[in-house]
């Protein structure tokens, strides 16, 4: 039963990933650093953004402001470069978490649809980005970001950092009470409330995680790239939502785990790496991502319907 469940949870994403991965392997000759690095290197930016958005989806909300958060955080971090690499990133992340928590609090308190509110913060933060600077900010001492890129085999410090965050969030979601409450609030909010779950706290934590992830992603990317631009990361939202959903997180909330998000990021990263490797332009990746996204939510919708048609079996089966 356990294996069956694990397969249902991760199977589809795993299959897609293996297909994408084997397409990539056609180009490279074997699983080696050469093929691993381009995939893993997506974790600091796309991965963290997907993690943030994914957690809000699991909590039954949706954070559309992640790309703006990342852009502003990048600007903020570069602005504070005089503090040094680690303090600048840490302060930015703290700001991101605080901003996210505030956003979550307002959404939960006012009972606003999170989509509406985060569209507002999306516009607002974009403006704040331009307020910090109209033009791209440059990292003056380019060596400042070098530690992030230090490689140990296929893993760099920034990749390790992002994987650490993944592990931390994963453990938090699965093993702690507030983490489980996020699942409960995402699955069925009314039931959760009746059962005494602190839904407001769950929503606040969701958005705090999302804000923190966005801030970390933006600031690390800014230091790695040596500059931050208020208009950057325009395609990040698409990538983040796609990664979470392609990996098997369900749009309806309350379902999916960090492992799903990891799988989703791997799929998208393999696709992007494969396309880039064949010399295809960037827009083809977007096209494929869009198609994948549609395909995944169609399958989910059909699966939901099939499950509804056979309610008897659901009752007879062991409770999930």
């Amino acid at each position, binding site marked *: 039963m356990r294996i069956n469940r694990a397969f249902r949870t991760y199977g589809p994403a795993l299959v897609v990933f293996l297909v994408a991965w084997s397409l990539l392997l056609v180009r490279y000759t074997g699983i080696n650093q050469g093929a691993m690095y381009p995939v893993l290197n997506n974790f600091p930016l796309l991965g963290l953004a997907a993690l943030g958005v994914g957690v809000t989806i699991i909590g039954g909300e949706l954070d559309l402001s992640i790309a703006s958060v990342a852009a502003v955080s990048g600007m903020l971090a570069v602005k504070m470069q005089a503090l040094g690499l680690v303090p600048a990133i840490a302060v930015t992340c703290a700001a991101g978490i605080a901003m996210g928590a505030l956003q979550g609090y307002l959404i939960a308190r*006012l009972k*606003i649809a999170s989509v509406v509110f985060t569209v*507002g913060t999306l*516009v607002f933060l974009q403006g704040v980005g331009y307020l910090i600077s109209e033009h791209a900010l440059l990292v003056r001492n380019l060596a400042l970001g070098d530690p992030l890129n230090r490689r140990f085999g296929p893993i760099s410090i920034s990749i390790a950092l992002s994987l650490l965050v993944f592990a931390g969030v994963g453990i938090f979601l699965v093993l702690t009470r507030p983490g489980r409450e996020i699942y409960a609030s995402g699955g069925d909010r009314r039931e959760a409330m009746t059962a005494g779950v602190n839904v407001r706290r769950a929503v606040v934590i969701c958005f705090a995680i999302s804000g923190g992830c966005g801030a970390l992603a933006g600031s690390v990317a800014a230091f790695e790239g040596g500059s931050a631009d208020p208009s950057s990361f325009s395609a990040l939202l698409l990538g983040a939502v796609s990664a979470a959903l392609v990996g098997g997180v369900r749009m309806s909330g309350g379902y999916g785990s960090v492992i799903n998000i990891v799988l989703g990021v791997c799929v998208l990263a393999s696709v992007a790496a494969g396309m880039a490797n064949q010399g295809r332009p960037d827009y083809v990746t977007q*096209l494929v991502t869009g198609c994948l996204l549609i395909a995944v939510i169609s399958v989910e919708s059909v699966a939901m319907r099939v499950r509804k048609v056979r309610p008897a079996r659901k009752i007879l089966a062991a409770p999930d």
Partner: protein
Amino acid sequence: LALVLVAVTAVGGSLTPGFLTSNNLRAILLNTAVTGIVAVSMTPITMSGNFVSLASSQTVMMAAVLFAAMVGAGWNYLLAAAAVLLALSVLGVIEGMVVSAGLNTLVTTLAAGAIIFGAVSGLTRGNDVTFRGHTISWIRSAHFLGLPAPVYFLFGVTIIVSLLMHTTVLGRRIVLTGANSAAAHISGISVRAMTTAAFVIAAAGAALAGVLACSQVGAANVQFLPTLTVNAIAAVLIGGTSVAGGRGSPLRSAVGALIISAIVNLMIMHGLSTGRAEAVEGAILLAVVAVLRVFESGSGR
């Protein structure tokens, strides 16, 4: 809401020399035209309970590129506009059917936007598509009673969509679908058909907006009007249409779009950067959404 607009105009007029001149007001109206048309025609989607489309920018871009390509190939511009309208309506039907099959609107339109962007980039190879000498600049230069032609299109679309939503059976059914889709279903209304109809209205509006924007500039490419999606959504929300569906009006979205352009115009006339204007726009949006929400929950119970 109209009071807000009047207040903005009055405060703006008294504090800003040159704000109330006819030239400036005309510029505001002209700037509102494209965003306004998109916002107004997207309102039925929101009213039908399907949030908003995240693909408006790409849809309008596609309409503009198509129009430019057809006019450039020597088509009569009316014929080209009709063809664009037809093509986009088909797209609207597809999007509407996908969404009404039970897929999340936001994710679907996000994906649709990416697919459209990818496809158009592939076809145009990222180049500009121009009219190649077939000018239709009359649309830019035509004035009637002192107002440029696109402004009349905005008025026209607002009136048509408002009448459609408030006085026709179709419109009332779309609103009921948004207010209570279970009740609509029980009373024999096809929720799918209504959702699809809302998407077709939005697509038709996007077609018109694309054609207008393209005729003003004379060319289009894949990077055409990138901020349109967010601005149109902002206009709908500032206008006060309820995202839960069932309440709102296209007219309010038009006013919302006007308020945004008036404020942005004011800020720029005061020498503030576009970034600052955008931050203020976002702040206003957040405030309006929060205040409306408080009112809504106050009167609802």
